[in-house]
């Protein structure tokens, strides 16, 4: 188990949980999104190999309507 923060919300995840697993959990794997892991942008190719650990901070963003 590990506690992480995703978009400001605290959640618990299993150990050996990758960013790809996180995206699957939130049904975002096929969406146009970008991810920051502790303030650093994670390139898409690294989603599978980037594992999450305790106290990690994740930001997942997408496009919304704007002027």
């Amino acid at each position: 188990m590990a506690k992480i923060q995703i978009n400001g919300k605290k959640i618990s995840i299993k150990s050996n949980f990758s960013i790809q697993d996180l995206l699957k959990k939130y049904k975002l794997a096929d969406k146009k999104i970008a991810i920051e892991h502790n303030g650093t942008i994670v390139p898409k190719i690294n989603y599978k190999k980037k594992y999450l650990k305790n106290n990690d901070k994740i930001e997942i963003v997408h496009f919304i309507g704007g002027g």
Partner: protein
Amino acid sequence: MKKDNLKIAGKFLKSRLIVGTGKYKSFPETAKAIKASGADMVTVAVRRVNILDKKKPILTDYINPKKIIFLPNTAGCFNSEEALRTLRLAREMGGWKLVKLEVLGDKKTLYPNMIETIKSTKTLVKEGFKVMVYCSDDPLLAKKLEDEGASAIMPLASPIGSGLGLQNKINLSLIIKQSKVPVIVDAGIGTASDATIAMELGCEGVLVNSAIAHANKPILMAKAFKDAVVSGRNSYLAGRMKKNYFASPSSPIKGLI
């Protein structure tokens, strides 16, 4: 005759109207208004995904970035750091290099912070971005942005979302005359005729959001803007008549009975 297309950072656009995707009542309305506007480029904002509601529809369910050019913007950013972070994320999302930079300085007027805007432009250009820059209508600062490598200069007509129209045509004209990159009036356009006036001044395009989204009938207003921009452009290309202080009869005097 050569086709009169708008060219920004090497990209040709069929329409000189760029529309925002904010403030609409619903996504279907947004999609219909964009279609009616004829725009081939729309601005979009970058925000957190709502992780609590996985089934809630999102913008890209209704507007396909493969069919229309997304122009990621930095609306809501109040310093260079926030703006750079937003645009780097936007680039990661889908390879977008053409972006709209908007660094705000004041919550009440949403007036651009030009010091942070110039700083951000410099960094973004260095990182390979093509930057369309929302800016004040000061000709010297507009020139500075061009010197820093901005791909388009986007002065405000009046404050964002105010609908006050073109408040300083002289400054806009000065910017248009001096700029070698496209000048696109951004912010403050209130109604279709404002867009026509901006185009008649010689702007290369206009960016409109609130005037369409907050009209009583947004889809009809989107169509009005489409026509207004075309009319204004044609009027600019045609070249208006000279203004005279006295009347000049339209019918000949000769042969008068």
